[in-house]
């Protein structure tokens, strides 16, 4: 139909696909206050089998968190396979602790069922939270996976470092 001008058509095909690399959606060199964050060893890289799930606290003892080794390279992932990520476990809806459904590779809150995608920087899949699950910035140094910062505000805080 000629003259119909409202549709901003979706660009598809090779050009779009080529642009869709993990690098293109990697975090802009950090909105978080990396300098204020502690660096904490979470796990030795060689202990993290595929499917690994490691509970820890970050940036302090009252902030339950989880490190996950996913099945594929993801935005913000570290390690040789870019498949290691970590998140705050406190749901950004009402602060209950989310569970990792390993078969589905999703984080789900048992209180009001908000769910988050660990392969998309903690984006809300469906549910009632008003922001993504805060992602913990990781680095690999000397064979250790270390937590070094955060992107996103932890539930129940006005600033991540109390």
């Amino acid at each position, binding site marked *: 139909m000629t003259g*119909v001008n409202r549709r901003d058509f979706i*660009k598809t095909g090779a050009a779009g*696909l080529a642009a869709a690399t993990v690098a293109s959606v990697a975090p802009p060199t950090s909105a978080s206050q990396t300098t204020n964050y502690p660096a904490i060893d979470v796990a030795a890289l060689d202990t993290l089998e595929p499917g690994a799930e490691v509970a820890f606290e970050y940036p302090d003892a009252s902030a339950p968190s989880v490190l996950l080794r996913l099945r594929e390279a993801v935005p913000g992932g570290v390690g040789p396979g870019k498949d290691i990520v970590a998140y705050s476990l406190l749901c950004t809806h009402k602060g209950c602790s989310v569970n990792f459904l390993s078969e589905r590779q999703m984080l789900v809150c048992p209180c009001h069922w908000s769910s988050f995608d660990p392969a998309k920087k903690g984006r809300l899949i469906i549910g009632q939270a008003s922001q993504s699950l805060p992602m913990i910035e990781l680095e690999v140094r000397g064979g250790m996976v270390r937590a070094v910062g955060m992107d996103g505000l932890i539930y129940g805080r006005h600033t991540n470092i109390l």
Partner: protein
Amino acid sequence: MSNAPLPPPNAEVVETVCQFCIVGCGYRVYKWPVGKDGGPGPDQNAIGADLREQQGPEGDWISPNMHAVVKDKAGAFNVAIVPDKSCSVNSGLASVRGGGLAQTLYSPDRGTKARLGMPQLREGDGFADAEWDETVDLGARVIKAVIDRWGPDAVGMKFFDHGGGGGGFENNWAVGRFFFEGVGTRTASIHNRPAYNSEVHAAGDAGLAPLTNAYIDAQLADTILIVGANPYETQTNYFLNHMIPNLNGDSLDLKRSTFPGEPAAPGRMIIMDPRRTISVATAEAAAGKENVLHLQIEPGTDIAVMNAIARTVLERRWHDVAFIKERAEWQTFEAYQRSSLGSDRDAATVVTEAAALADILEADIYKAAEWIAKPKSGGVRRRTLFHYEKGLIWGVKNYENIASIVDLGLLTGNVGKPGTGISRLGGHQEAYVRPPYPGGRPALNVDEAARRGEAKVFWVGGCNPVLTTLRAEAVEANLIERGAPVSKAIAETVGKPIGERVAAIVEALKAGGMFILAQDLYMTATARHAHMVLPAAQWGEMNLTSINGERRLRLYPRFMDPPGEAEPDWAIMGKFARRLNQLYQDDNNPLMANKFLDFDWRGDEDVFIDARYSYKGDGNDPMEGYAGITYGLLRDLGNNGIQTPVRLVNRVPVGTVRLFEDGRFGTPSGKARFIPAPRPWPGYAAAVERQRKTYRFWINNGRVNHIWQTSYHHRHIDFYRERYPVPMLEMHPDDAEELGIAPGDVLQVSNDMGSVEAMAYPTDSVKRNHAFMLFGQPRGAAGDLVTDHVDPKTTIPYYKGAWADIRRKGAKPAEFEMASFLPRNVVE
């Protein structure tokens, strides 16, 4: 964002209600100057929280999306909008939409900078800023010329008719008065449909109102039936704060104390929906699978299933004989049995046929009948709450569809008692005040009138039909075609005296043109085709009043200025009415001039008082009324407001928790009426059947929890836009595999009505050969695929009834990269 500023103890605090869905959750708005933040100590911030320590679950917390810096006439302010724990509707719960309310506020530094701040007049392919006075003068003169030459019906309109953001008593009343009392046009239509009509005429004819129950009834019911709705996503905190506590047993104590001596158990839920939605999954998580019945029906067959359930109830003698005898017109009950329930045939056959048609188990129809109506131990009647929404309303035959659930509710006596009700779940909030529509019933189809050239003026307010109406491509093509000669006339008379400009426009109208006005917050897809665009104020920029899904009336106060010269809709209507009054006076036509008198309200409360008094007076209408309500009273009542109808008892306004507790219904006899349908199932209309036979996929469509309506706000906010950059289309994984479609691929969805693009979202939520598409989006309007068939009795479309072919158009583009494709209906 890794922090959120705290409001200081002296921050301005306003109680208000969410602008989005029907539920109307309470929120608190904190406003304070930039640079004057509060601190983490409980006496250092206005929320009274001790944020020196980690908050526990359900604590006081401001998420980054609950905060924004906004631009006011006096400068930049911080605003934080947080859910209100003291509001009985949501008890401190936010939804994904309400949690981002702050992001919808105007700022020149965020996406909402796209708000309209000045009137716009067409200039070639674009627009130029204009002054209000010249804009109103030109528009009013064109409208007058059209009324004088072609009569009032040549002025067509499609306007919001709702509460919440962009609506409310104030704006609805002013718009209604302008078009119905002023212009006197019948060529009127409501935001989402081609006519000015009820979506539930059958409920009205039965003597019921659309919203009969209180939300607490969902905590008290033995069984909740939900037909054609997905409340976790679209009536969120009614579901989470009232239905879930029933399903998981949390409301047992309330049941026992409310109904002493009556058997009490955690509630059961029946959901009739062609999709296995997250509402089904979460209901199962709360109640246990054994207490949730999902009837995953084929499209348009809900009515047959409902009638088969009713026939079973009757056969087993579980119907409420006392209620029917005392509260209903008996002869309508007899007619209902003969026609809707097919009582000339064997009951088992009716069930077998319905099960086959709907592709569900016969046993599930019997189970539904038991859960709805089989008496509890001791012969105590079950309390069942009946809810329905767009899946039924916009179904195969609007009038008979609504009749089927209303009749089933009446058959089992489930209205006017705690724990019962027969109600819409609702989409948007409501504000029912309008002068009566001057046309008859069925109402005139405005889309048709515009297509045939009978509408010379088409004024679109607070809605976007190019994205949401049926057969939307044709509607848009018509706007372009009929708008063009008027655009040309405007271009050729730039700088000429106003009389010459109007004369040129009228010549263009004579030649088949149409003068298009759009009144909105943003330059929408429809507004882009207008000749005149009027900037409207939004929620928070004016005082407005609305009711929610349990008729809870509250004040939504103004707490900031509109951008630029944007004005509340009621004030815009006032400007046009006053100008028309003057033009008719100048023309020595007092008859017409007087129709536009009394539009000079001094403020929004004037409009409210005018509306609520003119609409129902201070009388005793059993269905609706607002006697004695003022802004002052509503301010005192805060976020719990008062439930309508409100009547004066000893001069004190008294609300109504649930309707029909006195057993009197809205019919001349005061008794409810069964609405017999000619047959248990009406079948598909010809235009629909043609599509069904030609194309493979049923394209169901509706909302998702992230996105409100056409995404007019949410497309400007990263958090929401990244989730659904374009409309997603759910399809079965086996169908996707067969067609070589991967998650995130771009799809082309086409049929004889049009063609749209969508983002592939394979999921077993839908059956094979079914699909579900997010409706009404700027980059893909499901309405393009819908036929122009309407129920001839009500002029309500079968919006859910489109069939189309789906093909893969291309691979997932980079802009979908942060959209998740994990299941939307898995919670454990």
